[in-house]
């Protein structure tokens, strides 16, 4: 049975794939990650996460069209699957439910304490 839960980095990458749409290939994702998260990550590690998400069935990939850039090499474009969307949804719902259980008071006290 394959592991189907999402790790933190996996979740972010999966979201980025969804955000980037047609432009979701490893280099762009890594760039976008840097812009959005403020920390950088090597293309290799992004790629390995993409591969893992593919194995879990949350992503599919196919080669794009050759263009003028990149020495005519094609890009591998990733697309989020229904299962991927489901997993993101589950993850968000789970967090929301946790957030909802967090007493406001506790947060106030904490703020007061600061």
């Amino acid at each position, binding site marked *: 049975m394959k592991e189907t839960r999402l790790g933190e980095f996996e979740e972010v990458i999966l979201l980025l794939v969804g955000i980037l749409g047609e432009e979701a290939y*490893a280099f762009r994702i890594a760039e976008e990650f840097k812009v959005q998260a403020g920390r950088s990550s090597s293309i*290799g*590690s992004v790629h*390995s996460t993409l*591969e893992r998400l593919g194995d879990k069935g949350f992503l599919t990939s196919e*080669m794009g069209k050759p263009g003028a850039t*990149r*020495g005519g090499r*094609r890009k*591998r474009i990733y697309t989020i699957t229904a299962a991927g969307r489901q997993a993101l949804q589950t993850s968000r719902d789970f967090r929301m439910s946790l957030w909802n259980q967090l007493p406001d008071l506790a947060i106030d006290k904490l703020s007061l304490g600061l």
Partner: protein
Amino acid sequence: MKKKIAIPPHFATRLLTWFIRDDLAEGVLGDLEEKFLQVAEERSLFLARISYWYEVVNYMRPFAIRKSKHLNPTIMVRHNLLLTIRNFKKHRSQFIINLAGLSSGIACVLFIFLWVTHEFQVEGFHEKEDRLYQLLGNHSQANGIATHYGVPADFLEAIQSEVPEVAHTIAWAPTGEVSVSVDGNYHKTEGLFASKDFFDGFSYRLLKGDPATMLSTKSGIVITQSLSDRLFKGADPIGKAMEWHFSGISQSLVVTGIVEVPKNTDNKFDYLMSWDYYFDDLMQYRGWSEHNALITVVLDAEFSKNIEAVKMVTSKINEVFKVRSSVFQDDFAKEGDENKLEFMLQKYADLYLYDNYENGKVAGGRIQYVHLFILIGIFILFIASINFINLSTAKAIGRTREIGVKKSFGASRGSLVGQYLMESVLLSLLSLAVAIMMVWSLLPYFNTMIQKDLTIGLNMETILMALSIILLVGIVAGSYPAFYLSRLKVLTVLKGKLGGKAGGAWGRKTLVVFQFTLSIILIASVMVVFYQMDYVMHKNLGYDRDNLIYFKREGKLMENHQAFIEEVKKLPGISGATLTQFRAGFYNWTEGVDWPGKTAENSVQFQQFFSGIGQIEMMGLEILEGRGFSSDFNEEQSVIFNETAIAAMGLKDPVGKTIRHYSGEKKIIGVVKDFNPLSLRDKIRPMVYLINPDRANYVLAKLNKGMELATIRKLEALHDTFNPGYIFEPKFVDQDYQQLYESEKQISRLSSLFAALAIFISCLGLYGLISFTTERRIKEIGIRKVLGSSAFGIVYLLSVDFSKMVLVAAVIALPISYLATSSWLENFAYHVDLPWWIFLVAGLGAFLIAWLTVGSQAYKSARINPAKCLKED
């Protein structure tokens, strides 16, 4: 401004394409290039390059790396293994020959290795081994420098007080065979007198007792566990009383300690007694001209392994000797004598292997045998490896077609190399296992043969050495087929263009010649060793040692020896009896002889024998002039010399002349023909015979032939009535004499075994090669037979090559073995002339054995029915 063209680092790209999964390559290369260009644009080309490298290295992740072409590498290994085993089965006889040859060779080498390490470990257990030195005396004589272990006992005190670089000085001396008794039960044993510091230098293990005090009282004795068991039957001996009997003296002793004597020491003893007792109470003559102590010194810790310090201590000791001995007046000293005695230090641990001295310097000894056997071991390893290499390469040529087929199916060169290397390494590992089993099961026999107690020590070094040698042999043997044959072109191989005469034949021939050269050298040398040993054993040493027995005179026999001798003479079966000091291999020496005309230049040392009346006659020594000792005269003032002594003194008409011995004026009554009391390694020295019943501590008796055993029983009964309690233990002079050659006998036994093995292994190799050749040429043989060739013609065809090789080997080997053996014979003062026929026999023998091996196999194939071998194709 010229814009630099931004291209990703070439090597990084190549590295990436080398390892990256093919299906990922395009996308990844594109991504990385995009990033590279972006960084180059925004930052700098240099940073872009660095980031490119960083990204490439970051792609070295399991998911991205290309999987091996063979989906499962173990399949290839299993395939190779299967092929290897099938090949072994298919060529079963060659496989067995190969295995037998290599494993018996390795077994030999392992045996030699065990023996050699044992030899090197003798005396190695002393913790202060690196600063333990033995004091030796070099005596310059008219007939050369004589080196003696015995040195003046006064050195003990002198070195202790005057040489500060020496931490401990130990004086010791063997007591010889004595009797010890507890409650009237007598046992024979041997031990040492040892001074208090004995345990500060030597690391014999103390089981009980206080090392500081146990040798400090004259009545103390430290015994071994085995002597304790004999005397006290298992009870704790500490504090118990025992008697010690030496000649006529009996001394009461108390056991103060138990010591353990390890196997790997050359200095074996059953007990230790107080040096002070020996020095104060037993020594008859003392002073700087009496050499009756063994002195071992322990240098200070800071001088360990310091040759300069040893030199300095040596010169200090010599200085001490000069100063101290000049006070002491020696009647026999001549002017110019001061420089005639010089002392030197030799490392104590080296005494065992380097015990031969020439001109006052260490000149080999047992170490020569150790080197000899290391050489033999290397020879045998060579011979066995050559076999293995020859057979493997020869066999591999027969498998070129297999290589062709495999290659045409796409086998890579690497996999072929792997297969052949694995095959030969596997076989060599297998023979190592077989060899270890052989050694393990044969070790007891080997131990009896060399009279040692070797065990297989499994330390890391031994294992690593054995493994690396065997891997080397395996890789060398496998490398010809692995690297040469795997390079061949598929087409040539499959067309069969590469016939039996393919490369490697020359190399193989050279190796066979080399192999037989080594074997012939071994055979010739062993024959010479045997010939010399036979000569030594049967050479007339100038005295008749047959049926001559001797035993120790002690207890009551010290007093009433005359009556005893008379009674012994009356026994039937005894043809003569007398007192003697003579034993084969032992002698006393003295410089205390003065004759008219003696100068510092012509002074010599004499071997001195205190004899009884009739001893000279019983030993069958011929009296050349004058007469022997006789009971008709009072012989106290008489002396007899041997020929060599008379010549050394330069006396004319010696009989009737008077000389001065340290025990008084003596008249020469006779001259005796030379005989050799030692072994043939030693020259005959000047000898002096005197009558002195007090110092002639043995009884010598001559038995009549035929009833020796019954006579010895009667002798024992007589001994027991005269000397109740003491043990009667007679020894044959001849056996003692044989004992002197024990190491030579061991060497000759061992080397003959190894020589036989060498020729056996060589012949196995030849046998393997010839059977391989005939197998390959079987069709040729069939066709020749069909065309009318005789069986002899075919035998000739097959064996002529091999005969030539052995002949060449003989031509190379014989001169080498001549040189080697003649230098070995130089070790003997008396040796055979090297007979030329030995070399002829060795050469012809090797040739004959080789020819028989080859010929029998060739004859077998020559008789084959041509229809059988030609029916295929």
